[in-house]
């Protein structure tokens, strides 16, 4: 076994090893220090130079090389100058067990590369979701990392990264895997229409396409659904936290709902008599805002439905989506065509129904028979941000707080986790961290991580494209992973796709 270094000093959590000459220890690398009865899994969190020569002599020699062009060399260079690595304890591994480290490795113990055999404690859970392969520094190991889907998704997941670090790639890999396995319902609100793959490789190419339901209002491809939501599905509560109305406007809206029930939107627009006095201006503002938000026109006492909200179609859309999710399918809703508020309103409508259904199942005692449902939210601070939540909770913050009791979770994608309140971040049990340059954002994630990442700020900043760290209550340690490239990952599945024998019985040829 290749020796990479020797333990020379430090303290618990800050073990210093000297790197063997010719070896290249990397930030984030996993190493093993072997004792007589056990092994300790260590991880590099910092690198520094070490030398037997004093600083003033090093400076003198470098000056001579630079200014005098001399080629003065040290004798036994490898012995005098070297690299040091700072390591933290991860786990103690015995023959049949693994547990949090509570002891130091032996002084001068040899430190070597981690092998697949050392990692046999990483097993495949029930109803797994594949995230990527374990990574040691920049090296990808032949160890697949699966998370227990039901636990992970019901206890919320966050995907945090700066632009271009592979968030969408990871989400695509994750969704592809979920479509294959069909044990977790995932609702994807897709503001960039990037997952289905209308014009390029995407989820549409999945061999189990029946487990993918795609809704779009923009020229939906054959076999996908036109996003139409019946206007009668809208309730005043759906606007909470996604569209702001003043207190007076809210009161008027609630009065309309009480009086006209599911026909309340039409009643507002037609300014039907409410029997209660509200300021004329208040009703006019609500009417104007509803017309704009719901993409309606009103003239000659007639309402014209121009967009996704309709009177004659979409009566079962929300229920259909819930049913598909309950069947463990992935439902992608293309919201790229809508302005922000409309997109969030649609998300709120669906999510509210999902949550209420699952609450109902819990009351009936049927909840455990249902698959976990996760709601994938892009740019999560739009609904979970501190500013938004100052004006009151919304369905997404409610799910963040209490969703896990009802097997409904969030999968929040963001570049700016610091905008999400600490309590909500702390409720997100699994965090998949990709490269983040901004230290405030790194800190927000580190402060709320399931494992101690206090020494990993630098490692997080240096994560390359496709590299991630998973911190979760459901992993034994904060796992460094390499997420496969979506196009590479799906290749095998697509090649395996069987060609169907078509039979057009009943058609006259």
């Amino acid at each position: 076994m290749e020796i990479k270094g020797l333990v020379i000093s430090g303290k618990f959590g800050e073990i210093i090893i000297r790197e063997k000459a010719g070896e290249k220890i990397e930030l984030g690398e996993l190493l093993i220090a072997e004792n007589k009865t056990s092994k300790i899994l260590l991880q590099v969190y910092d690198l520094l130079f070490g030398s037997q020569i004093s600083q003033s002599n090093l400076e003198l020699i470098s000056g001579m090389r630079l200014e005098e062009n001399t080629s003065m060399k040290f004798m036994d260079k490898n012995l005098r100058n070297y690299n040091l690595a700072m390591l933290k304890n991860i786990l103690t591994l015995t023959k049949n067990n693994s547990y949090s480290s509570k002891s130091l490795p032996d002084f001068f113990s040899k430190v070597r590369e981690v092998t697949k055999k050392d990692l046999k404690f990483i097993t495949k859970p029930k109803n797994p979701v594949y995230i990527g392969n374990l990574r040691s520094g920049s090296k990808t190991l032949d160890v697949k990392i699966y998370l227990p889907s039901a636990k992970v998704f019901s206890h919320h997941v966050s995907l945090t990264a700066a632009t271009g670090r592979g968030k969408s790639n990871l989400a695509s890999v994750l969704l592809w895997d979920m479509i294959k396995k069909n044990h977790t319902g995932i609702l994807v609100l897709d503001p960039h229409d990037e997952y289905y793959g209308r014009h390029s490789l995407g989820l549409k190419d999945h061999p189990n396409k029946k487990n993918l339901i795609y809704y779009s209002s923009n020229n939906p491809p054959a076999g996908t659904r036109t996003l139409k939501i019946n206007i009668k599905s809208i309730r005043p509560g759906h606007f909470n936290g996604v569209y702001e109305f003043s207190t007076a406007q809210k009161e008027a809206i609630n009065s309309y709902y009480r009086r006209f029930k599911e026909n309340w939107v039409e009643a507002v627009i037609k300014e039907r008599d409410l029997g209660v006095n509200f300021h004329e201006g208040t009703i006019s503002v609500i009417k104007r805002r509803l017309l704009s938000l719901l993409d309606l026109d009103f003239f000659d006492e007639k309402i014209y439905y121009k967009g996704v909200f309709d009177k004659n179609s979409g009566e079962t859309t929300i229920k259909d989506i819930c049913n598909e999710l309950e069947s463990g399918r992935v439902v992608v809703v293309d919201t790229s065509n809508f302005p922000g508020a409309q997109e969030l309103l649609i998300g709120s409508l669906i999510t509210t129904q999902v949550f209420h259904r699952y609450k109902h199942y819990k009351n009936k005692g049927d909840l455990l028979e249902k698959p976990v449902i996760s709601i994938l939210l892009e740019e999560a601070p739009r609904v979970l941000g501190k500013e938004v939540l100052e004006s009151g909770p919304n369905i997404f913050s409610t799910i963040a707080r209490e969703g896990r009791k009802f097997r409904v979770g969030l999968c929040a994608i963001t570049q700016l986790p610091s905008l999400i309140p600490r309590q909500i971040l702390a409720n997100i049990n699994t965090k998949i961290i990709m490269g983040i340059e901004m230290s405030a954002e790194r800190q927000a994630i580190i402060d709320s991580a399931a494992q101690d990442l206090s020494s990993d700020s630098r490692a997080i900043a240096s994560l390359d494209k496709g590299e991630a760290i998973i911190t979760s209550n459901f992993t034994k340690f904060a796992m460094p992973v390499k997420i496969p490239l979506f196009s590479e990952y799906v290749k095998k599945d697509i090649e395996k796709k069987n060609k169907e024998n078509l039979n057009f019985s009943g058609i006259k040829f």
Partner: protein
Amino acid sequence: MKFAHIADCHVGGWRDPKLKNLTIDAFDKAIDQSIEKQVDFILISGDLFNSSIPDVSLLKRVVKKLKHVNKKQIPVYIIAGSHDFSPSGKTMLDVLEEAGLCINVVKGEVVENKLRLKFTVDEKTGAKITGMIGKKGMLEKKFYENLDTKNLEQEAGFKIFMFHSALTELKPKELEKMDSSPVSYLPKGFNYYAGGHVHIVKDVSLEGYKNIVYPGPVFPNNFSELEKLEKGGFFFYEDGKTSFNPIQVKNVFSLRINANNKTPEQINQEIIDEIKNKEFIDTIVLLRILGKLETGKTTDIDFKRIYSMLYNKSAFFVMKNTYSLKTKEFDDIKIMHSEIDEIEDTLIDEQANGENIESWDLKKEKSMIRQLMTSFNLDKKEGEKVYEYQERILKEAAKLLDIEL
């Protein structure tokens, strides 16, 4: 251009002969009104018959009517629906087409593993008509998945697409669980989409799809439909405008009684109070009683007397629905399965408690119930006398129970 769009006639659809005849009466009316309106052609979007091989007497009446319309030189274009389609190809629609009484527009070829549908051109108007069959359990979905829509969309002219499927985006709330396909499976840019299968009246346009029309049945097909629709109907299309044309074959009177906390006597009285001052000439009367009776059984409601009163008041037909009527004397049994075996298993699991027979535990009780049910299910053998059959069944049961007869 003027045409009629009919669907879901379900000729022969009701079990009772009186109601069965109403389906054909409604069909006759739809054709007569179309002739009267001088339409250029008639579309029937599936389920003309309730089965692929209908009763001869009903078939005779349909043939007579089609011959009549044929004489008027009004072509009838049809597609097979989930009821009158036959996977073996044995459907009466083929016979009607062979006899020149209608034209099945679902014709095509397979090109590069894709189904390429062909248009049937209406000689008089030049309208180009094509369509897709409907199959049970939405099996036509596979056809749509492999449909070459490009050639259909590129064709110029006035185009009609006939289909017999539920469309996901247009399903009404009460049919939430119905199998359906998205609208996007239909080729875009047609002038009229003549739908069938879903018994609703709907005329909707969506982006890329103008005039998606469901005319509903010509006569309601079951108790709930009668309650909801009361009458059937069909659509007329005339130079870009669509209109629904209702068909009234009988009057319908619905009475809904909430039985919660009431006795059978109170319900009797409530119904009698509702009907005593009314006449029911040529009327179908629907009685739906739902809820949980305070005392007594559902059979304690005196339907005989009520029926007699209604028929004396010239009602055409009286029907009751007590599906959602419960009584406190029996516990509800929840059944979520559709297969007979599963229903039996559920009932056994719910009712067996291991305490019914002293020497049997729960496992044995369940096993014995299943075995007894199997032995009671034995068929009478050919040539076997009834008493011999009874004796054989008894012996089988005695053997199982280990008792002497």
